[in-house]
């Protein structure tokens, strides 16, 4: 009897879900990265929970932002995940609306840096990463400072991120910090890099490219995001992760809500689901994203591959989004004119 009751209830629920699924649709815009894992760990469970249909649009930030801008009058995308600088850019163009954080039950569990990264509650951080220096511990005694990247010991054996990558400006900022110049124009560190341009093997664009260069012994050291550490630590060489005295830098990705999308409640429900402890834990355990939710606990082995824990999170020296956005063009010009010549 009990089984029959459960079966009937399940059937009724399923039928109800099927009916409402046709009514409720949430369109999200995300990075193309790890979509199989996201489908399994986030999208499918959410569709089951809300009884709605989730339409996932992927692409690089430029394409996705262009689409949001083109459809600003009648938004197609309800929520998007982008970088803090892109979120601020979209905010300034009037494409976003504040997120009603009171409706996010997981909001209080987030690390401080993720709660309101661009101000006015226009975005909520869902993952972040540390950037530091990975190096061959058999070739170099140790890396104490970011300026060691340009030391004679590493000349001809180091790669730096291109200024056009997410890692580029934060690394330049830390180089500036190492020589005592933290001006947002990054003029001093760009000058410094240009003086050593011949000692740098390449300015990399993708961390996967870097893994190969390390494997081929083209380079002994390079700054990388913690999310790429897994590609290096088991490459057959003794590898180490530096903790320079100036600290670690990094980046953060955030969730945003498009303006007047008419689907705010469902979008908030999805954000809350994604930020919840079980989902953030599942994403961390699958090594997809480092958790922004402070309640997430993972094993030491998993944590080793992530940017994890309150100490790391609270000590990340991130470039503010407004500096990133306002200076981007200036950095690129200086870089192209000094380093690329």
């Amino acid at each position, binding site marked *: 009897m009990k089984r029959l009751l459960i079966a009937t209830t399940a059937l009724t629920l399923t039928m109800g879900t099927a009916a409402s699924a046709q009514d409720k649709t949430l369109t999200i815009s995300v990075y193309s990265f790890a979509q199989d894992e996201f489908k399994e760990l986030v999208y499918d469970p959410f569709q089951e929970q809300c009884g709605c249909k989730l339409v996932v649009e992927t692409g690089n930030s430029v394409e996705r932002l262009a689409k949001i801008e083109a459809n600003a009058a009648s938004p197609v995308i309800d929520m998007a995940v982008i970088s803090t600088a892109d979120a601020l850019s979209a905010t300034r163009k009037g494409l976003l609306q504040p997120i009603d954080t009171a409706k996010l039950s997981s909001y209080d569990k987030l690390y401080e840096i993720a709660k309101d990264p661009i101000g006015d509650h226009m975005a909520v951080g869902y993952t972040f990463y540390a950037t530091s220096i990975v190096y061959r511990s058999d070739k170099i005694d140790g890396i104490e400072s970011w300026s060691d990247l340009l030391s004679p010991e590493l000349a001809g054996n180091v790669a730096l991120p291109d200024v056009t990558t997410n890692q580029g400006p934060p690394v330049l900022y830390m180089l500036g910090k190492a020589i005592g110049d933290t001006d947002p124009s990054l003029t001093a560190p760009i000058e410094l890099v240009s003086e050593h341009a011949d000692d740098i093997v390449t300015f990399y664009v993708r961390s996967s490219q870097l893994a190969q260069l390390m494997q081929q*012994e083209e380079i002994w050291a390079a700054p990388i995001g913690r999310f790429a550490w897994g590609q290096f630590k088991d490459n057959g060489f003794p590898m180490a992760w530096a903790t320079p005295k100036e600290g670690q830098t990094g980046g953060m990705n955030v969730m945003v809500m498009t303006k007047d999308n008419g689907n705010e409640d469902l979008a908030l429900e999805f954000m809350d689901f994604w930020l919840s402890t079980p989902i953030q834990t599942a994403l961390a355990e699958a090594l997809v994203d480092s958790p922004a939710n402070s309640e997430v606990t993972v094993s030491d082995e998993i944590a080793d591959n992530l940017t994890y824990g309150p100490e790391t999170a609270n000590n990340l020296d991130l470039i503010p989004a407004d500096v990133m956005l306002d200076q981007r063009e200036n950095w690129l010009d200086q870089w192209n004119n000094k380093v690329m010549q």
Partner: protein
Amino acid sequence: MFENRTIGLALTVPAALFAAALFILPVGILLSEAFKGDNGFSLMAYVDFFSSPRNQTVFFRTLKLAGLVAVVSAVVGYAAAFCIVSLPAKSRGRMFGLVTLPLMISPVARTYAWLVILGRTGFVNSMLVNMGITDTPFRILFTETAVFIGLLQLFMPLMIISLVSAMENMPRDAIPAARILGANWFQVFTKVILPLTREGLVVGGTLVFTGSMTAYITPAILGGSKVLMLETLLYQRVTVANDFVAASVIAMILIVMAFSANVLLKQIATARRTRV
């Protein structure tokens, strides 16, 4: 082919409409960005682009590398094509297959292979060190040399294919006839082979030059941002600076250069024909 020319033309309409709506129109809209100023039509975007010393460097580097790849492809291509057409039919098919084989492999895979071959511990450097030519490995990767090698390997098959088909259409007894009449091999090449295969050279040259100029993957992987070329610069302008005007300017320059290369090569071929 069609008795009624109208039917023939009518049959091209669907394809023409398709190309116009989905290719010419969007490309036109995109490129029109580069001619917009505050008061309508303007060429200021081009003036701005070429006034930057960095852009000039990138422009001339692209032109130089694409030109060099086309010239070296033609020189090596003629030798390879001549060998291939001289072979018996069965071996010719095999050799032709070997030439076309790389075209069936993704350019990304081919270019990544060069990363391994040209690296400091790669095949080329290991050989040079073992032969005692150098003590310390050369830095080849992320230089213009690496981009040149990558582009040459990528596009030379197109030149060889064009030249082989041109040589196959050459009268079979033209070379023996020239030899009997006392021409040396240099004269045979300049007075017989070159004029008779000029169409193949024009097609091959255009394909190799425009291909090298517009390739993105090879300069991006083998040159990196230290060896910026027009197409890597275009990518950078769009994805980082969100500067669609500069990107349109670069796209327009690439299109103009491709057309110019074709026209120039045709001119050279025609000039040769009138002289012969």
